[in-house]
């Protein structure tokens, strides 16, 4: 009986490993056709422009296809991340990170929504110091929080404040978007939870649970202040490299 249980347990582990591998491989494989679709849409748009046949209708709908392709790509990235967290394959590779440099690079590469031409404002105060963190995870944290700030606001550009305090860096991601209803705040970082006022704005509900996991993995803290209809501020803090040793 004991042998039987062991076999079942091994089979279950193998099944989970296989399922996890399948998710990882197929998620990457999906990106090739997504790239081909996105390139084909851009080719159509370029051809319409050169033949002076582009009009507002084509422009709006072609741009919408591209937006949805990148949305789907973000969902795949979230699935890949959750998959590696759940399968225990997430490896930490901590190094000294320049937060301002990372945010500056993120700002110049940010293109989650091609229809949205805003760029976030970066305000730095204090004397910059490095933090000891995993580059991939930190990048994912900022991409998600900044991405949300854009996604849930349409007026002012989001603001990212980086405040180098005596023993820690405090980073605030501020938007003037739809905000989060008070009743939803306690569940906000739970997997698959989505606030009750997101309506048709797409998302998996996985992003903030990934953010929370990664913040904890890097010995940081995260809090949120929000008023429905007025906007949200996500506040992160990380100890400096010299203080975290």
């Amino acid at each position, binding site marked *: 009986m004991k042998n039987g249980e062991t076999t079942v347990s091994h089979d279950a582990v193998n099944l989970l490993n296989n399922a996890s591998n399948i998710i990882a491989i197929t998620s*990457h494989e999906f*990106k090739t*056709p997504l*790239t081909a679709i*996105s*390139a084909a849409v851009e080719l159509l748009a370029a051809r319409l422009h050169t033949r002076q046949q582009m009009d507002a209708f084509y422009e709006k709908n072609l741009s919408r296809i591209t937006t949805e392709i990148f949305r789907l*790509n973000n969902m795949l990235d979230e699935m890949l991340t959750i998959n590696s967290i759940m399968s225990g394959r997430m490896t930490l590779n901590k190094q000294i990170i320049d937060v301002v440099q990372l945010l500056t690079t993120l700002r110049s590469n940010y293109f989650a929504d091609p229809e949205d031409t805003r760029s976030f404002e970066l305000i730095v105060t204090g004397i910059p110091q490095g933090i000891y963190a995993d580059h991939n995870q930190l990048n994912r944290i900022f991409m998600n929080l900044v991405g949300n700030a854009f996604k849930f606001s349409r007026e002012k550009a989001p603001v990212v404040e980086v405040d180098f305090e005596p023993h820690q860096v405090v980073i605030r991601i501020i938007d003037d978007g739809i905000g989060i209803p008070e009743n939803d705040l306690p569940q906000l970082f739970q997997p698959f939870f989505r606030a009750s006022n997101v309506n048709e704005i797409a998302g998996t509900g996985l992003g903030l649970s990934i953010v929370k996991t990664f913040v904890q993995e890097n010995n940081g803290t995260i809090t949120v202040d929000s008023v429905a209809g007025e906007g949200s501020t996500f506040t992160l803090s990380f100890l400096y490299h010299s203080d975290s040793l």
Partner: protein
Amino acid sequence: MQHTILLIEDKPGLRDTLQSLLELHQYQVITAANGEEGIHMATEHLPHLVISDIYMPVLNGYQLLEAFQAHEQLRYIPVIILSARSATEEVNLALEKGAAAYINKPFLFANLNASIQHLLQTTSGSAPLNL
């Protein structure tokens, strides 16, 4: 002056579309379906720039970068890597092996083109190519 770009991509659909997009932006484009074919085309035509996928049959993008670095003339040709994998380790490995830029799939053509323009401007005149 029209620049020649060698595009190395094993998926025919993406290769054809990218070729058309590049041609529409006034580049002369030659193509290859894997790393080995890519090295052959590069040696024969000495393009101004190479755009290459990583995961391809026969010879992959990392092996292509190694072969370029070991070659007297090819080592001066900038190579832009296009890949669906975005982990820092993979990006760093490609850059360590000599890639001039790394762009994640899917991408906006404007971003790829900005990279191409930047590399063509920074390498023109400095690369000892006999074109």
